[in-house]
Structures are given as C-alpha cells and as structure tokens.
C-alpha cells in the first residue's frame, strides 16, 4: 500500500523533473523545484511509515520549510537580477544619448 503510493509519487517527481530540465524560462524551473520539494515531503512521510520508523516526520517538516525559504530566496534574487539588468539597459541608453 505504502509502496504503491511511493511509486506514484516517484512517477510524479519524474515528470516534475522533466519539466525542471526542459523548462524554457527560469520560472518554470522554480515552479518545478518547488513542486519537487513538496512531493519529496510526501515521499519521506510515506517511506517513514513503510520502514515503521515514525521519527522521520521531523525531516518532512524541515523539507517543507526549506523548500519554501529556497523558493522565496530564488524569486528575490531573480527579481534583483532583473532590476540590475534594467539599470544596465538604462545606463547604456543614457550613454548612447548625450
């Protein structure tokens, strides 16, 4: 029963992985990584029940926290990178003008 769920989750992770590898824009990749984190949380919980060692839910909790912090960090740095690209373009335009 657990094994079946684990396999289904693994299949889902596989498909998300394909999207992560193929994703054209950087946001597709961020989306895939975020979804990957969530499915890993579920995977770990199911595997811990499969091994009859139920102490692993702490790990699942940490995965959830970290995938959230990671996603927010990536988004902020993509934004900052975008803003700096804006400024570089503005700088080039200003040098061209005078």
């Amino acid at each position: 029963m657990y094994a079946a769920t684990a396999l289904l989750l693994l299949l889902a992770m596989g498909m998300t992985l394909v999207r992560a590898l193929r994703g054209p824009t950087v946001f597709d990749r961020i989306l895939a990584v975020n979804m990957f984190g969530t499915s890993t949380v579920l995977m770990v919980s199911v595997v811990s029940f499969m091994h009859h060692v139920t102490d692993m839910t702490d790990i699942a909790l940490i995965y959830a926290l970290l995938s959230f912090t990671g996603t927010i960090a990536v988004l902020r740095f993509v934004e900052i990178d975008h803003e700096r690209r804006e400024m570089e373009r503005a700088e080039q335009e200003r040098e061209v003008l005078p």
Partner: protein
Amino acid sequence: MGVAIDIILLLFLLSIAFAACVTRNLFSAAMLFGIFSLISATLFVVLDAVDVAMTEAAVGTGVSTILILITLASTGYRVSPRPAGRQVLALAVSVVLGATMVYGTLDMPSLGSPDAPVHTHPIAQYYTEVSPVEMGIPNMVTPLLASYRGYDTLGETAVVFTAGIGVLALIGRRRRKDPLPIVEEFREGGANRHRVLRVISKQLIPPILLYACYVQAHGDFGPGGGFQAGVIFASGLMLFMLLFGVEHARRIIRPVVLEKLIALGLLIYGGVGLVNILQGGAFLDYRTLAHDPQHGLHYGILTIELGVGITVAAVITTIIYSFASHLRDHVMQRTLRLRQGADAAQTSPESGA
C-alpha cells in the same frame, strides 16, 4: 520494495548530473544542484541515514544553493558565454578516475551484506548495542557524534568557525563610521510589492526559530542536533532578511554580535573539554562532569550541542548577511551612479538646449 525506490532515485540523480554538465545556463545549473542535493537527501532516508538526510537537505538545498544564487545575482552571469573548454582532457581524466574506482569496487562486499567487515567489526556491535545502554540515548548517532568521536566534531566546529571568519575577512563590511545612505524607497519598492509574502512570513518566522530550538534539544531521541538546528535558525533569519531588506535585518542582529557568537560557540565546546581535564578525566571525557557518569554524559552532550548550534547559526547568518550586503552594495552603487547620471542628464539638456 525499497530496491525499486532506490533504483528510481538513482536514475533521477544520473539525469540531473548529466543535465548539469550539459546546460550552459548558470541559474538552471544552480537549481539543478538544489534538486540534486534534495534527491540525495531522500536517498539518504531510504538508506537509513536519517540525521544525514536532515543535514544534507538543510545545508545542501538551504545554504549552498542560496549562496550560489546570490553569487550569480551579484556577478550578473546568467549564461556562461564560452562553451566548456578542454572537454576531451577533462573527459579522459574523469574516465581514468572512474576506472580506478570501478577497479576498487571489484572486491567490495555487495551493498548491505551482513558479513561485510563494516558490520562484523566489534566496534559496529559496540555502537549499536552497548552505546544506547551505556549512554541511555536512543538515537545512536548523537552519542557517536558528540562523545565517542567528539574530537572530530570539535574539529568540524573549528572548520565552520574558519569559514565564518574567512567570509568576514573577504567580503565583510568594514565597520564604517558613516553608514551607507539607505535608499529606502528602492528596496521598499521591491519588497512592498510582496505585501502578502511579508504578512505570511511574519507568522512563519517565529515558529521556524522555535522549531530550530526543538531540533537542537531533540537530538537525543530523533534526528536532530547542533548543526541542523543552527542551519534552520539561520534560514529563519534569512527569510526575514529576504523580505525586509538586509539593512533592516542587520539592525535586528548586529554583525558584531554575530562575530562574538561565532567565537563563543567554539569556546563553549573547547571549554567543556578543558573542564574535563581539570576534573581529572581525559579531554572531552564527559563522565567527569557529574557524580553519575551517565548524567555527566548527558550534560556534556547537551552543552557541546548548544556550542555547535550557536557557532553554526552565527556563521551561516554572517555568511548570508555578508553575501547579501555585498550584493546590495553593488546594486546601491549602481543606483547612486544612475541617479547622478539621471540628474546630470536633466541639468545638461537645459544648459545644452
């Protein structure tokens, strides 16, 4: 059944490693590395390494990937312009490396075989049978980490201390008399757009920090301990820094205090060892700490886990603050230059026209 999961996870790892080698986009390489360490953490769970899974996820996905992304954001490199050079030489050398390793695995005991020397050696029985009874700690990794091989962990805390001091020495901000003019509206503009994020994070950050203390103390019974707690504490502070700006975060926990905390953690750890010497035992022999050896062990392990937790939390927070403020100084200078440029442009047309 575990074998099928094992094989599929290994296939994932292989595909990511190849993709990382092929891709020329640095952002995607960084995120692939994030997924790689997340899957390897899941593989550790399947291979019964619970503490390592927690650390690998917290450190691999949480810290390394974020630092790589900050470096990319501040160096402004998205696609690495040149194709990888010297491919043939690199391939040849790594194939030779692989060949020696495969040659090495020919005589290895197969995975998990009970008659492998690793399991038949007397210390393996000692760690799994005698230590829980002797120490009274169910999680066998913590006594091994803190007491049997406690000196390794002291060395490791020293390594973390060196990394903290190194990053401070390299890109730490000089204690300026006049703090940088904080262009608030520039940062506010960016952060204000995420009002939803800031509200949610305000609810999330206190539980994260509380959870870090739980992980710190829970090291004896389940997966947890000094390192994981330190990293979770630092990721909580990082979340705050991300959403409320580095300047604000630096005012909450001043970098000077962090620097002292880095030193304090290592001193606590070493101090426990010196106290043991003064009490007449060997270095890091906690049995001398209290009348009953088992109590002494518990006190010793809890104290050094606390020392490790303080150092790791302070070091990772310092590293992330230094990286982020280095990035912010860069963006700041560019803004000031741009603003002066814009003012100059406004004045020169009138004078020019």
